[in-house]
């Protein structure tokens, strides 16, 4: 339950302004919660003096059985033309959410946050969603950890789903633990496999120790069961017909400026379109074997021909050939694209743990003993600098040929 420390409360009224449920009012120089309180926790963080606290009890099995439905966070991105629309990972989550919901005999709801620029919400209905919970507010015009956590927690408190899934994107990975901590929920990061067991529990499987082992994890004591799901692992839900019952519900959003405690003061987008290696389907990665920075043009060209992006090993980041945001591996980014082509990368374990979950791996390296060859589907021992130009041209030709039937 929510308790108010009367000695500390200075009756500033921020909690009243922030509460999405009208469940707390300031009276007699002190905040007083009422029976509308859902324990969403929005007021606790906004209190400037720390007068509010929530003590949660673990729910009983009977209470847990009341939670039903699969909720998915429909993370949005900015599109040209100043629109906000769900990202690709949302469609991947939908394919999994649909499977889980069908096994449970429950429904799939997508929660989408944004402002008036939100589009593409109805499309979700053609990809497996039964319902969209649309949350629009001027302060949700861009992602902020505090704003989004507050709104999603109040939605969870009202909806009581049995499962809540988020994409393991940078935002999803910081948002999920914040929500899990606020609502005292078990959370599993970066899942690559989800299933329902005979107890109707979600079994969440994820790689650990850099992909050296797989662990299956359950959250037996709390609802909803929360998981972040690695992008690019699951196929996106197929486009189908919209179910007749599909509907979009608007959720009333209560959010005050004071609740958002971080402020973006400057944005520095990288000019290269290739920056987002985490979400890329095809990655061509360069290593020390590429010999010099100028040769990266060959890598870039191959990546472009395949519709992918360029990345690299730690070695070439340290030589300043590419920025750290493009580094694959233990001290960089973990990627799992459909296709990973390693060029001139020997494959130290620190690199391999960052890419070993790619669906298909091709490596080109001069050294026949390079450890990268232990994890490949196709390995070529040879000089990449001689192979790449012809390969890139051949791929372009094949694409042109395919376009002309």
């Amino acid at each position, binding site marked *: 339950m929510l308790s108010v420390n009367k000695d500390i409360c200075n009756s500033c009224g921020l909690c009243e302004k922030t509460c999405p449920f009208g469940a707390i009012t300031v009276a007699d120089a002190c905040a007083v919660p009422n029976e509308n309180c859902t324990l969403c926790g929005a007021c606790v963080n906004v209190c400037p003096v720390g007068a509010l606290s929530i003590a949660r009890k673990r729910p009983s099995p009977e209470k847990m059985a009341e939670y039903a439905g699969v909720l998915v966070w429909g993370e949005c991105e900015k599109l040209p033309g100043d629109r906000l629309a769900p990202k690709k990972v949302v469609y991947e989550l939908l394919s999994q959410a649909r499977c889980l919901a069908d096994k449970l005999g429950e429904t799939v709801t997508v929660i989408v946050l944004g402002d008036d620029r939100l589009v593409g919400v109805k499309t979700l209905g053609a990809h497996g969603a039964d319902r969209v919970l649309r949350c629009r507010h001027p302060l949700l015009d861009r992602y902020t950890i505090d704003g989004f956590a507050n709104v999603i927690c109040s939605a969870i408190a009202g909806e009581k789903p049995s499962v809540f899934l988020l994409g393991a994107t940078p935002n999803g990975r910081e948002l999920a633990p914040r929500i899990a901590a606020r609502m005292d929920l078990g959370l599993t990061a970066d899942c690559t496999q989800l299933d329902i067991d005979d107890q109707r529990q979600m079994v969440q499987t994820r790689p650990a120790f850099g992909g050296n082992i797989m662990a299956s*994890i359950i959250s037996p004591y709390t609802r909803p069961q929360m998981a972040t799901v690695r992008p690019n692992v699951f196929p996106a839900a197929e486009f189908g017909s919209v179910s007749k019952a599909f509907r979009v519900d608007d959720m009333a959003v209560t959010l005050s400026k004071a609740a958002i405690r971080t402020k973006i003061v400057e944005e520095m987008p990288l000019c290269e379109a290739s920056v987002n290696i985490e979400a890329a389907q095809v990655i061509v990665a360069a290593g020390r074997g590429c010999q010099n920075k100028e040769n990266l043009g060959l890598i870039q060209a191959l990546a472009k021909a395949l519709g992918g992006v360029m990345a690299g090993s730690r070695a070439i980041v340290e030589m300043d050939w590419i920025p750290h945001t493009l580094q694959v591996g233990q001290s960089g980014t973990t990627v799992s694209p459909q296709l990973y082509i390693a060029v001139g990368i020997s494959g130290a374990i620190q690199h391999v743990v960052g890419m070993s979950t790619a669906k298909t791996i091709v490596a080109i390296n001069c050294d026949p003993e390079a450890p990268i060859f232990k994890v490949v589907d196709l390995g070529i021992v040879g000089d990449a600098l001689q192979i790449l130009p012809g390969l890139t041209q051949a791929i372009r030709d094949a694409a042109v040929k395919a376009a002309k039937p």
Partner: protein
Amino acid sequence: MKIVVCVKQVPEISNVRINRETGTLIREGVASILNPFCEYALDLAVHLKKESPGTEVIAVSMGPPQTRSALMRCLELGADRAILASDRKFAGADTWATGKTLAAVIKAAVPDFNLILVGKQAIDGDTAQVGPEIAEFMGLPQVMYGVTAEFGKTRKRIRVRREVESGYEVVEMRLPGVVSASKGRLIRRLPSLKAIIDARSKPLKTLTAVDLDIDDSHLGLKGSLTQVVRIFPPQSRADGRKLEGLDPEGARKAILAFLQAQHYVEGGQPSC
């Protein structure tokens, strides 16, 4: 200013081996290191200290007694003192229980902190969850994936340059708060001999569960909200091929045929 840096000791990943029969980790003979991202967080703290003289950097960790060696490394790299929370009751904690415990450790040992720094993630679990969980349990704002940071003039705020999907952004947050460190531009230094010797005389305090204001039911395996039900080795790539001795033309053809068979490139013979 007081900066708390939460760190984790992790197994050196290149030595991790799996017992194929039991599917469990073989821990014997595996060296332990300070998690690299925690080292970046510590570097960031030392950098902030340099800019704001009089700042104290306190390294905090939870783990078995041998975690002392990771904290010693922090002291060598510039932390002023270290706190180890070690108790059998903490064993087997998931991220929720770890976050709860570390929040209680910070409240007990450094109640007047201004900033908490964490690494973006640990290289063994890779969850990136404990930092945001500490922030939420302590009711603090957070900025994740920071690469550089500076205090505001009045030291009531911090500006963090952080990695985002589209590049970088600079975020301002009022203090106290939590910042996680990605790999920054700070150069990793090897501690000097003097720093190593000095570290031995810096205070390293150990706390146990009784020193913390936390219910025993929130600690360790018992307090964890998630449960590991199975550990198994990942599927290996059974049919990988390595081709040697091809000329560039042959190599080009082999790769193209493979990419076509896997449908990454159009055309070619359909695969069987």
